[in-house]
């Protein structure tokens, strides 16, 4: 059976350049990057090269890059670290990733003011809500991991700044798909993840604009500008830098290809019948900006209402069909997709993102997310489209039964 991997938003396969960098660094690993001897110096050289590469990829200064174990740690550092440095009031869209929501909830439990900003049915936050919340810190994901909705970070950031706030952008899903420039975005903190764009697991970074109030959450060493103690995972970070550089270097050609794949899937799924809904209500479109438009629009699809989404994430709702059984059925056909939101046991649950966008609980538990990236092909899309009809027919054959009688309760 040919295997199809369409779950890049969960984790992307390792890019060959990243594998090479990882292997070389592992083979050469000899010292601690903090050590004064030749072994340490070699490790330090790789580490600082990686830091420069990552900084260059997002228009930052190398000393503004704090390496972490991944996006979750970077998001925790952004929220809890600014709170520890004295910020009291946080606002974030209700559709944020749990690695932002949960730290925010923890802050709320400690008496901080946390405002969950509502989103529209298409997943966007109204800047007026940011203005009303007047947060010390606005945290927003540029690309939503479940739906691919692209928030208008520039406008939201401006609204926060007008109230004296600073801005954190979670770019874990955006990096490699959208051009990122921290100056252009005008952000103070920005999260990156290695494995979402073809780097190794266990590596990520937080961009920290100089002068941003931020305190370390862990203690134990002076590494990473004192913000993240512990000996750096140099091989993983070298792989991260290589993957990010490759991804940025491939913009916009790679994104243009992935855009075609995503739209091909949307068109094919839309043809499966009127009962099928896209989570972001976005219709398939070939009006994608694939290099023809302004640079900031690369990697996004312009929708008829002027809002944007990334093409590489397709979240589709099959009403009445549980997402986890759909994922299992595709898995049996060798196809890897996800429900977009999994609980600790690996089962799907009603997605908080879809609930926030106004979907009911049943629909929010009936979502399937396919996501594409650097190694995806049209054959992958066609394989998914070929597998779906019998699976949907089988699932629907048993949803038509008479519902159970209500209990007396």
């Amino acid at each position: 059976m040919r295997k199809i991997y369409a779950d890049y938003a969960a984790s992307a396969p390792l890019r060959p350049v990243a594998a090479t960098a990882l292997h070389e660094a592992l083979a050469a690993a000899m010292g601690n990057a903090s050590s004064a001897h030749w072994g340490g110096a070699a490790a330090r050289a790789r580490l600082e090269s990686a830091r420069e590469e990552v900084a260059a990829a997002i228009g930052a200064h190398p000393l503004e890059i704090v390496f972490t174990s991944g996006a979750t740690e970077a998001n925790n550092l952004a929220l809890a670290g600014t709170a520890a440095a004295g910020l009291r009031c946080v606002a974030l869209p209700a559709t944020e990733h749990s690695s932002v929501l949960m730290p925010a909830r923890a802050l709320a439990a400690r008496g901080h003011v946390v405002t969950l900003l509502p989103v529209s049915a298409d997943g966007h936050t109204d800047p007026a809500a940011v203005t009303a919340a007047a947060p010390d810190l606005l945290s927003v994901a540029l690309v939503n991991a479940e739906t691919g909705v692209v928030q208008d970070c520039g406008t939201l950031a401006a609204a926060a700044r007008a109230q004296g706030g600073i801005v954190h952008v979670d770019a874990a899903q955006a990096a490699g798909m959208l051009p990122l420039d921290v100056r252009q975005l005008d952000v103070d903190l920005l999260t990156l993840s290695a494995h979402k764009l073809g780097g190794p697991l266990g590596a990520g970074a937080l961009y920290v604009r100089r002068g941003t109030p931020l305190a370390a959450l862990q203690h134990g060493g002076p590494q990473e500008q004192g913000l993240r103690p512990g000996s750096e995972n140099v091989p993983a970070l070298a792989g991260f830098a290589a993957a990010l550089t490759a991804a940025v270097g491939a913009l916009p050609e790679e994104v243009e290809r992935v855009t075609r794949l995503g739209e091909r899937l949307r068109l094919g799924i839309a043809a499966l019948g009127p009962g099928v809904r896209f989570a972001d209500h976005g219709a398939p479109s070939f009006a994608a900006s694939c290099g023809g438009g302004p640079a900031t629009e690369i990697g996004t699809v312009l929708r008829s209402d002027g809002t944007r989404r990334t093409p590489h994430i397709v979240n589709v709702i099959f009403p009445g069909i549980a997402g986890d059984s759909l994922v299992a059925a595709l898995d049996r056909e060798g196809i890897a997709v996800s429900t977009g939101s999994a609980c600790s046991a690996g089962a799907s649950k009603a997605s908080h993102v879809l609930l926030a966008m106004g979907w009911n609980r049943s629909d929010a538990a009936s979502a399937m997310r396919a996501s594409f990236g650097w190694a995806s092909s049209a054959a992958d899309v066609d394989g998914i489209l070929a597998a779906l009809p019998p699976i949907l027919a089988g699932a629907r054959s048993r949803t038509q039964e008479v519902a159970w009688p209500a209990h007396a309760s």
Partner: protein
Amino acid sequence: MAGARVIVAMSGGVDSSVAAALLCEAGYDVVGVSMLLTDDPAGSVRAGQGCCSLEDFRDARRVAERLGIAYYVWNLAEAFHARVMDVFTAEYLRGRTPSPCVLCNHELKFDELWRRAGALGIELVATGHYARSACGADGRHRLLRARDTAKDQSYFLFGLSQGQLARSRFPLGELTKSDVRAVARRLGLGVADKPESQEICFVPNRDYAGFVERRAPAGALRPGAIVDADGRTLATHAGVHRFTIGQRRGLGLGGGTARYVTGIDAASGSVRIGVKADLASRGLLAERVHWIARPADRASVRIRHRHEPVPARLIERCGNVVEVWFDEPVSAVTPGQAAVFYRGDEVLGGGWIGAALPGALPARALVRECAETQRADETPRWAATQTAGGDAGPEPRGHQRTEG
């Protein structure tokens, strides 16, 4: 059946693990599925709860890896809450003692799980129940007790329809528990010596009262009186959900002769206390009766799991009500539990106990005149509950055991 696809409901315990293993050996194309029945499995690990925890899922996953089968966790929490837990709570609030495993089998494992298996094109559902099913010459499917009668779990399966039985597989039906553990050891399954779960899986620490109190709607918990056989108030209590027929402990009456809960009247909130002899009943009303075999007028009737079936005469009344008259009195007929009818090893059917019947056999006056109350079009759906708690006969069993 080689090559046929089957879903195995895997709990992470030794029984369902071996059920999956035996199906693999028999050549089935096996997919293991665990049902997630709570919204916070991580929390249940922290609470040290036995069932449906991340620890159990991990065990099930490791078994599946060992067997080389696909394994998934499916979230059935909403269906479980609506169709099992809410019924469980409502039954206790009605002064009854529910048997949730019966519902879980009928509504989750052999219904919701099967429906979801439709996406995978899988028709068969297997479990680790100790029970047997067979197809008779007339094409009817029969449900039989397990060969190992000490482990038999057919009581919990009486609600299965013909369609559900047709698609069920019970690979452990011919085995004893020690056979099952031996298979697990032979195959190197890590769960070979895992202890059995004995509690209702979704109630932590056997605290039924606390569970009901957390889930009861506002105003549903009402204090009441503990009264003796003559109606004199002996004490007060915090709610009828804290009692079951035959209960001895927790009555707050001090020492002296053993006294038991002999009746619960949810309407007035009174809990009646008596001596052991007061727990005896000659009969019971079984409601929402479901027949697997053809209706019979005699059967051995089991009134709770592990109760030795007692010979009885069955008199069918309309509206799927059956009067059950025991040849000898039985102790502690408990409304809310199932009364399951057997002939030898075969499960003929069963129903939910609505009330104990006092007196002796031809007590026709007790039976409602159903002709007028019964709507002709009312489908005899047996599903749980309904009837008010009413009085009831007699005895105990700290509420119900599970392993359903």
